[in-house]
């Protein structure tokens, strides 16, 4: 093993920048003016041992550069994923394979082929996220362990080279060193420094805890990723859509037939002039009365199915509860939550027609057709009768020119009626669509005159069950604790040492050098010690050709 033995007698792992114990710079690092204090100069082992394939993989993921590159690539991919719509936002009943090419040409085709159409579901995106996770774990492990070791093993008495090459450093000559040390010690203790003494030298340290912040933060992130991963475990995560008409009772998808929902009523309200508190008047005047949505609400009844669950069977239902679902006020039960997300107003429900003599305009009765349960025949009495031959809920003419339906939703109902009257015992056929009547067999005596439309609203609800949420919450909290830990505390160290009858003062912090300087100034006040020079700033100034200032600013 290639260990490096320092002159103080401490044995350091290969790759160490300066001795773990006394801080004497090792190897080529001895040349530079200031010491690189990152990770306490400890050896990041991944960069040192590179023999087996495992070590090589480890070294790859241990690199912060690789980690940053992965994050940047993921960022760019995510950005590209917003250029064209994601697959879930395509209109229903279109094939994504054709849609992207039709709409966006060869770019769209490429977009689809590369899997950008469903970014979060594409294998390479998932692999990228996973690699970020792996990189996080390995980067952290590779740094936190040597750092912990280095901070634990640091000696009090440091090599003069270590002190001289700290960013804050000063040399003073004092009359009574013992007294100065005593004063400084007291003041440091007051400032809650943790003080260690050895051979009359002092190491004062506080806020070491701050150094673990980034790693705590990473643990939070990893827990968060694990939570996201658990969504793929069956039963952990349900996200379904339920469209339900007023008056309908439907199975709630995602509950395996256990729960049913009845939609009693859908309510859409707007802010209207005269109905609201006066303070809203100006705003209502500006945008117009009835223009701003106030409430989207579905009044529902939740039922639980009793007895064995067999699909298709008329369910035996037990009422669980009534609820008014509003935006952000979901119905919650048994870990399921039903959210108000969408609606469709005025879907045709029932249509009324009058059987009418075309010339006299005399009516022989009204037929009301339930667009979901039309009857084959409607008897109007006195020998008048209407048969419904065909029904097209979502009418259009297909490629062959035949009347057809696009779906089962009554968006554009059309009917083929056969009208029977005492004087027309064989019946007359009439095709009736909205604002359109066709008489396929010539001129009829009678017609079906449109006399009314009853509509109803449809609610769009989201069914959600998420058992991963608390894991994401815990991960988020730990993440935040890590951030706070690293942000609001600084790891400060002050070395006070007697070297050849002089008192050497050196100090280091991981951030907020200004704060550290202020603290030192207060600590050495009246002791006769010289205020340390910020050697980094001196270097910078020298590089800029500026004037070099004195030691005490």
């Amino acid at each position, binding site marked *: 093993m290639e260990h490096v033995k320092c002159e103080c007698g401490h044995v350091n792992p290969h790759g160490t920048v300066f001795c773990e114990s006394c801080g004497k710079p090792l190897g080529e690092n001895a040349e530079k003016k200031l010491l690189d204090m990152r990770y306490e100069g400890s050896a990041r082992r991944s960069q040192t041992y590179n023999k087996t394939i495992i070590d090589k993989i480890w070294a790859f993921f241990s690199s912060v550069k690789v980690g940053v590159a992965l994050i940047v690539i993921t960022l760019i991919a995510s950005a590209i994923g917003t250029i064209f719509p994601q697959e879930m936002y395509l209109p229903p009943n279109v094939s994504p394979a054709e849609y992207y090419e039709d709409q966006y040409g060869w770019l769209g085709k490429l977009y689809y082929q590369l899997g950008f159409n469903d970014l979060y579901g594409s294998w390479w995106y998932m692999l990228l996220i996973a690699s970020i996770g792996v990189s996080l774990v390995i980067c952290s492990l590779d740094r936190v362990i040597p750092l912990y070791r280095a901070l634990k093993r640091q000696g009090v008495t440091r090599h003069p080279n270590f002190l001289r090459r700290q960013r804050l450093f000063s040399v003073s000559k004092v009359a009574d060193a013992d007294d100065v040390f005593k004063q400084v010690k007291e003041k440091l203790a007051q400032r809650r420094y943790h003080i260690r003494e050895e051979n009359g030298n002092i190491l004062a340290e506080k806020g070491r805890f701050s150094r673990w912040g980034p790693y705590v933060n990473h643990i939070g992130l990893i827990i968060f990723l694990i939570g996201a991963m658990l969504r793929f475990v069956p039963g952990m995560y349900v996200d379904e859509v339920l469209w339900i008409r007023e008056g309908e009772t*439907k*199975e709630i998808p995602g509950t395996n037939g256990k729960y049913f929902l009845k939609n009693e009523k859908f309510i859409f309200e707007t802010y209207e002039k005269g109905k609201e508190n006066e303070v809203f008047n100006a705003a209502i005047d500006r945008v117009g009365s009835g223009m701003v949505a106030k409430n989207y609400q579905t009044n529902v009844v939740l039922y639980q199915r009793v007895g064995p669950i067999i699909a298709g069977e008329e369910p035996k239902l037990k009422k669980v509860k009534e609820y008014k679902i509003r935006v952000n006020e979901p119905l919650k039960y048994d870990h399921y939550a039903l959210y108000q997300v969408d609606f469709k107003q005025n879907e045709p429900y029932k249509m009324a027609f009058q059987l009418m003599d075309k010339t006299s305009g005399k009516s022989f009765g009204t037929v009301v057709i339930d667009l979901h349960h039309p009857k084959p025949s409607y008897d109007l009495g006195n020998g008048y009768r209407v048969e419904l*031959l065909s029904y097209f809920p979502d009418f259009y003419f297909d490629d062959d020119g035949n009347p057809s339906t696009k779906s089962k939703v009554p968006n554009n109902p059309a009917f083929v009626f056969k009208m029977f009257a005492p004087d027309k015992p064989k019946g007359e056929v009439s095709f009736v669509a909205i604002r359109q009547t066709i008489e396929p067999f010539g001129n009829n005596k009678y017609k079906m005159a449109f006399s009314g439309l009853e509509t109803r609203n449809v609610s769009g609800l989201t069914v959600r069950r998420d058992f991963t949420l608390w894991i994401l919450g815990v991960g988020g909290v730990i993440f935040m604790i890590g951030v706070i830990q690293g942000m609001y505390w600084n790891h400060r160290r002050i070395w006070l040492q007697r070297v050849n009858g002089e008192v050497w003062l050196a100090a280091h912090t991981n951030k907020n050098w200004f704060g550290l300087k202020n603290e030192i100034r207060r600590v050495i006040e009246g002791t006769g010690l010289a205020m340390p020079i910020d050697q980094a700033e001196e270097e910078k100034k020298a590089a800029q050709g500026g004037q070099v200032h004195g030691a005490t600013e």
Partner: protein
Amino acid sequence: MKKQQRLVMRTVILLLLLAAVGYTIYSNFFVDKAKVKVGSTAPDFVLTDLSGKQHRLSDYRGKGVFLNFWGTWCKPCEKEMPYINRQYSVYKNQGVEVLAVNVGETKLSVQNFVDRFGLTFPVMIDREDQVMNAYDVDRLPATYLIDKNGKVKGIITGTMTEEKVKQYMESIKP
């Protein structure tokens, strides 16, 4: 010694990470997330056909069931219906039953459709989408081939040729 230990540790950690990543990728891309998949037991259901007769899937154990989901607006469904009808007349005597489940349209439309094509097999309407939910039917037509033990032998989405219909019925013959 220590070096050996480190290698073991690294290997273990890498394997753990690989397992986690592997599971996620595997469960996403290689596990069929469909509720009903080939080899699983077909979910039982009860539906009433147009003539008022109740059909329960589990009552057809011992027979092969050709379960077809369709809608009148779906042109590919329309195309394959006559094929199914013709092959049904051949295979019904060999223990293959066809159950055609309409996805909740009106009885009138369905009856008209059945009359137009002269369908002889039982046609039923899944009024509340319960059976569709149980089978997670997404696109029409969808056909489930169920063998005499109630196991799903095959799932076909999209239109079938008559030759294919014949093959599929042959495959579930008890």
